């Protein structure tokens, strides 16, 4: 049995009287790609927002690597090792692609505050090293030709890839990707999917929220289906497509009238 990276137990999130996520149990195992799917408004993004600390849960528990991270602030969750991308491209639009990734190395500084303030040689060396590693991440994702372009001028697909670069720059143990291929053309989708599998082959644990069924089916090891904030199915993709409840959630119930 592989180790569990993230445990979600009895998680609920209410907005007023509306429950976006209710009584959800979920495990993410080490080095797997977990797909989270479901119709619009099923609570997928809310789930990510709760895990990553942007919302605090109404009840329930989130345990990451044996540490209870329930209710921590977003930056503390990031420091614990969970990194996420956003549904809409969320970048530092006016900065170059390289600066975007470089800025995300915020948690990687090891030299002391005063050394960094006084720009001692060790601090300068460290900056150089981090800039180099930002460049390596861009190369890994195939964006190194665009390193000096402002992020706002990149295409939609490149921006999505850049946001994955930025998430990687924080050295996460768990990567949450919110709709990484939505709104892309098939060629771009294939590129991103290849990159995601390459990231996984380095041992990364990944969870993906995505609407593009084919992408999810090809990429993910395991799939969880949400509907009205509840888990209605879990398993390998074959089991999912044959699951009656899932078909009903997507296509509606057959009613005879």
């Amino acid at each position, binding site marked *: 049995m592989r180790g569990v990276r993230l445990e979600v137990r009895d998680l609920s999130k209410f907005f007023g009287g509306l429950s976006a996520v209710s009584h959800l149990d979920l495990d993410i195992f080490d080095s797997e790609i977990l797909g989270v799917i479901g119709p619009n408004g099923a609570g997928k993004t809310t789930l990510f927002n709760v895990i*990553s600390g*942007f919302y605090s849960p109404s009840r329930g528990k989130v345990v990451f690597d044996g540490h209870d991270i329930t209710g921590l*602030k*977003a*930056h503390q969750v*990031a*420091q614990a090792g969970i*990194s*996420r991308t*956003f549904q809409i491209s*969320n*970048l*530092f*639009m*006016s*900065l170059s692609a390289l*600066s975007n990734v*470089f*800025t*995300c190395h*915020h*948690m990687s*500084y090891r030299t002391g*505050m005063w050394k*960094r*303030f*006084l*720009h001692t040689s060790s*601090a300068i060396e460290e900056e150089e090293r981090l800039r180099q590693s930002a460049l390596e991440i861009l190369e890994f994702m195939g964006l190194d030709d665009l390193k000096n372009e402002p992020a706002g001028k990149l295409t939609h697909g490149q921006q999505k890839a850049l946001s994955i670069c*930025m998430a990687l*720059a*924080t050295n996460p143990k768990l990567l949450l990707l919110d709709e990484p291929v939505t709104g892309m053309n098939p060629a771009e989708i294939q590129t991103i999917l290849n990159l995601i599998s390459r990231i996984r082959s380095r041992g990364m644990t990944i969870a993906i929220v995505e609407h593009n069924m084919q992408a999810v089916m090809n990429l993910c090891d395991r799939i969880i289906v949400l509907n009205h904030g509840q888990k209605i199915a879990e398993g390998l993709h074959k089991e999912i497509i044959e699951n009656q409840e899932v078909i009903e959630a997507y296509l509606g119930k057959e009613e005879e009238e």
Partner: protein
Amino acid sequence: MMLRTGLISLGVAAFWGIGAYASTALVLKAELSFWFALPAAAIITGMLAWAIGYLVVRNPGFGFLILTSIIGMLIGLVFGNIKWLGGFTGIEYIPSPDPFVIPFWGLIPFTSKIPYYFLMLALFLVVVLSFWALYNSSTGRAWMAIGLNPHLAESIGVNVFKYRIIAFILASAAAGLEGSFYAHYIGSINPNAFNIFKTINVHIYAILGGTGSAFLGPIIGSLIMTFAPESLRIAKEIEPILTGALLILLMIFLPGGILGIFDLRQHIWKPFAGNARIPQWIKKLLLSAE
């Protein structure tokens, strides 16, 4: 500086006033030397900003604007109602700095304006160099990240609240330092000098010069705002009107400030000259963003 973290503080003049009063009190009431009071004023202001910052920085956006402007408006009343600090008439006859001995040079008495000029220049350099060092370190990049996109900054592990407090403290401490200098230079202080319009002027300097650059923007802005009204003196009565009109025109036609001209030029040139760009070294000087 606060602009960098996406917050507009209307309380700058308040901290300037706190610095001025702190320094005056240390010199007149505690009979300490100016050379002790100057850094002490900055530290006292910074500590007060820390306490105040904990309350106000929690509400970014509009709340912060309102809270700091309330501080800006209250500060005059607070000082005015402290009899010990001279009430609303303020304090007069603040001693000038003690004479200062520079080795191998001699005694520097603060009798003419020249030593003040060099003292101001030195303080200016200290402040600018420290901020330059900060902007070009991880702290500056964290500030920039917050200013550009606070949500994203959080998700890459930047403690947004902490970095905003740090910016608030440092900006206030710098204002306190200048306040201390001001009190001993002018020789008198009164609560009305530190009203909110001073703060608004400071922001006009920064916005007029161009918010794209951390240093050159405010410097160019303040140069223009100091000299332009002077040169419009010919029509003294309508001088504020002219200045105001000039400002409005600038806002409309140059939303990026004076430094925005460079960007405009880039846009106009591009289609004609293909690769016409600002030389790299000017760019480096102008954009402390990187």
